């Protein structure tokens, strides 16, 4: 079986903001070559580091988003352009003037290589009043709207005494990188029809602005804006929290399943009153539902609550830290986590693997993240002919 992008050559000239794009394309089988200056890509200086010792080959942040790629060191733009001539895709994070200055302007690139797919991922896109503005992930999470919607609720006086919060993990950059991968694949599909390359202009701000689910529609429909506050949670007897959504809107079976479970656990109390079968009555007395759920939580630890809720048909989930996910039996059974050898360290490292199970074209996960310049000579040979 071959991978969907096997044989596709991707040249990556990005900072940390768009490295996840290349990681996805590499997983799909593309030959992703990261072009770095002699000092290394800037992302190699970002921690955390292995054993907390900085070094170009020790950045775990770099590892996470560069697994599966090759690295070449090229310091002169002539060499870079020669590689562009032999690539199918160029992903970069240069604003238009910077790209121009390096000979990577779209017009001149397409003159040299009309089939090249050029994808620029920038904070605000190539034009518009904010095109020159500076942004990191935090700024983009603020402008995009997810930050305003995340955080703790107001105090009893209705005043928010804590700030809106952005997730860790560079989610705006990650969303932009994912959209970049989608656009590149769309462009490759088109190229196989037409032979034509094109320019893809990804604005991370626009990507960040389009990921807050129903909030725009709420405003359009009701004039209201979504205010921040956590989803309902239950705290188990071991202190672990469980996201405890009770989606009554999906139909009467939701409450019926919950009631059966609460009765079996002996904590249903007044909910057994047939009046609660009426959704209007239930909505008016939801506090009783919540009291019963709290009685359930006092008797069970977080993982048990997760299981009890799921067995009752409720979309409950125990809140895990990112590393606690490694123990999830379902993901393990699906073969999600992949161990890769780092021979120079004499270690094996576990990485998140395929984002889906593609039965005819498996995810490629064979190369550990590249050492700086590790493949310079090899790539120049491999890519010498097209």
């Amino acid at each position, binding site marked *: 079986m071959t991978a969907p992008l096997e044989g596709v050559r991707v040249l990556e000239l990005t900072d940390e903001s768009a490295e996840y794009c290349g990681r996805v394309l590499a997983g799909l089988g593309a030959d992703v070559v990261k072009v770095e200056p002699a000092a290394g890509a800037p992302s190699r200086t970002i921690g955390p580091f292995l054993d907390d010792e900085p070094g170009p080959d020790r950045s775990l942040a770099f590892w996470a988003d560069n697994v599966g790629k090759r690295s070449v060191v090229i310091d002169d733009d002539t060499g870079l352009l020669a590689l562009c001539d032999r690539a199918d895709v160029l992903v970069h994070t240069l604003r238009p003037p910077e790209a121009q200055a390096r000979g990577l302007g779209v017009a001149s690139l397409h003159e040299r290589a009309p089939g090249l797919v050029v994808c620029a991922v920038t904070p605000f896109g190539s034009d518009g009043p904010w095109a020159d503005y500076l942004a990191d992930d935090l700024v983009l999470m603020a402008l995009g709207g997810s930050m305003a919607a995340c955080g703790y609720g107001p105090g009893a006086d209705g005043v928010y005494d804590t700030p809106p*919060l952005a997730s*860790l993990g560079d989610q705006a950059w990650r969303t932009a990188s994912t959209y970049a991968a989608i656009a590149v694949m769309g462009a490759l599909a088109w190229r196989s029809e037409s032979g034509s390359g094109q320019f893809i202009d990804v604005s991370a701000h626009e990507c960040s602005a389009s990921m807050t689910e129903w909030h725009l529609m709420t405003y359009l429909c009701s004039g209201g804006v979504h205010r921040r506050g956590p989803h309902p949670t239950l705290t188990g007897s071991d202190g672990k929290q469980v996201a405890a959504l009770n989606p009554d809107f999906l139909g009467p079976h939701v409450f019926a399943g919950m009631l059966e479970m609460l009765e079996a656990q002996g904590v249903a109390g007044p909910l057994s009153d047939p009046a609660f079968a009426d959704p209007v009555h239930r909505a008016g007395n939801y506090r009783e539902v919540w009291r019963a759920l709290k009685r359930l939580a006092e008797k069970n630890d977080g993982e048990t609550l997760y299981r009890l809720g799921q067995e009752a048909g409720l979309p409950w989930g125990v809140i895990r830290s990112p590393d606690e996910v490694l123990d999830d039996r379902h993901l393990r059974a699906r073969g999600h986590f992949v161990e890769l050898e780092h021979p120079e360290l004499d270690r094996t490292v576990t990485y998140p693997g395929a984002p889906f199970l593609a039965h005819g074209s498996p995810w490629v996960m064979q190369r550990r993240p590249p050492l700086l310049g590790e493949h310079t000579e090899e790539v120049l040979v491999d890519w010498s002919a097209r």
Partner: protein
Amino acid sequence: MALEGLRILDFTRLGFGAQATLICGCLGAEVIRVESTRFPDAIRVMPPFVPEPGERGEAFGAATLANATGAPSPNRGGIFYKYNTGGKKSITVNARHPKGLALLKDLVARSDVVTESFAAGTLDRWGLSYDVMRQIKPDLIYVSMCGFGHEGPDAANVTMGPTAQALTGSTFMVGLPDRPPAGWSFSYLDHVGGYLGAIAILAGSIHRRRTGEGQHIDVSQLEPATALSGALLLDAALNNRPSRRPGFPTGNRRAHPPSAPSGAYRAAGDDKWVVVSCRTDEHWEALVGAMGRPPWAHDPRFATMAGRVEHVDDLDAHVGSWTAERDRYEVMELLQRAGVPAGAVQDAADRLERDPQLAARGHYTMLGNAEVEPLPLEGVPFRMSVTPPHTGGVLHRGPPCLGEDNESVLCEMLGMSTADVAALAADGALS
């Protein structure tokens, strides 16, 4: 358009699956939603509802009676309009009716991709398992999208975005130190899962073009999320630094690279905030200049990044008292002009009405349908120079009314006559 000619028979519901096919529709694929009048997609019939024409004034957003009294029609559910741009068509078919099932098989035979987001096993119970479908269409690309996927010990579990967020660490990553996680207040993973669903569809179609082979791709909402934590997983495993530890997560503060001042600061107004993020000494120098060089900024404790990080609480208090007197957009403009990364904390109303960049980029496209006046809707947030995506898909149309394409799809795809379609409807096969 990039995917023109690709036909997707789309059984997705709610957000996660529909996000995937909306992306493909915006790229030019023909997306035919297969729906039910008896069990409409929940987001067609739950609030908030799009106002009736005349119910709102010049500005969007007047509260409506419909939002207080229940579903007025399956075509007014507001959230449906978020997830069903891309020029999707809608047909209604009763899969439990023998003629309905036969119709679905005819449609599968003429489609490239089948997508669905039901619980595992639903299509099998209809008599439309992957094995059945691939006998009809040997090179079919079948993309299933449900919370836990179709395989694995917990495949029967039920999820919504926040469930998957809890289980995969996404919820955990949003919070202040030493408090329970705040999490995402919306289904972020409906989006992320949908993006990977779109990648699965694209991968399947590129693979088929190269090999002639179809396949089943099983997308869950869990796997797309595990890479979202970046280095946290590696830091825990290799440096023995589990994320569940005192002082973690760190709210808006970022340890890598060490940056201060960096965070959300209160601005003038009720619960208004602005992000200022100094990642370098240059950013800090520029900030000090933009603030008019206040005496406190020359405190030797703040002279280096290491010093600013060490004394970040004091530093944040000073920066916050400067921002608190100023409008968030004024702070953003002033600092950006000075060379400091900064941005107003915007909500959905701000994005629509106060964000000049989104407006200039044409982020919103006005699209409606027979029942709903044009609304500013979103598609894919990138541009392509040769095959530009369109929020209304190939036909530049708005999200479909329930069953609005029954006749055109059945006549054009299956060669039926209007009378044939009417007879099927009378039979109950199109409910």
